[in-house]
């Protein structure tokens, strides 16, 4: 079974530039998560989709971050404009969508904002 795919693996941008990350979840997984992991911290949920609807985006900085999940499959996370404090690893995860389902994670995208 193919895992969660993310691209790119690494990205370096200057502050105020924009950046986009892509995630392809495991086939058949209804739930998709985007997490932000700052160095030395645990993952923090940014947004959770159930199919193509948003379940939770309470910690998404909506003035600069946006995410979409077209057709309930792939998802993109965008930051515009980026700030220095956005430097982090952005993890995508997916699950079957039932309460007992565990999340499967991609390898993440390491973003450095200079």
């Amino acid at each position, binding site marked *: 079974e193919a895992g969660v795919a993310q691209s790119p693996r690494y990205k370096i941008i200057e502050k105020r530039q924009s950046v986009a990350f892509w995630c392809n979840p495991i086939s058949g997984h209804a739930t998709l998560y985007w*997490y932000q992991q700052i160095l*030395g911290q*645990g993952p923090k*949920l940014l947004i*959770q989709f159930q199919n193509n609807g948003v379940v939770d985006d309470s910690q998404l900085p909506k003035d600069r971050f946006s995410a979409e999940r077209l057709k309930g499959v792939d998802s993109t996370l965008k930051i515009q404009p980026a700030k220095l404090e956005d430097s982090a690893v952005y*993890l995508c*995860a997916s699950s079957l969508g039932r309460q007992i389902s565990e*999340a499967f994670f991609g390898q993440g995208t390491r973003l450095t904002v200079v």
Partner: protein
Amino acid sequence: AQSVTQLDSQVPVFEEAPVELRCNYSSSVSVYLFWYVQYPNQGLQLLLKYLSGSTLVKGINGFEAEFNKSQTSFHLRKPSVHISDTAEYFCAVKGTYKYIFGTGTRLKVLA
């Protein structure tokens, strides 16, 4: 609301020694509990999970964890660690639909 506390940010241990990584949680509803491991430059990989039933849960790579409802704990243990166990370990709690992760414990296995 749920929360997870991992009190130990780093745990150094010698190879072949036992280890325990502590996790405490708080929740007003029933939860499911998970331990994930993260190797450098990798995503998170599930070690084990507690959903219901037996409070002692066995996972991959020889790890096990015990769910203690009265103490709201879910500590991770391994009787004999290997150098390859050096990684970051995250405890997570899932309530209705959202995963909440702890801040992680860095396990450093020394030769």
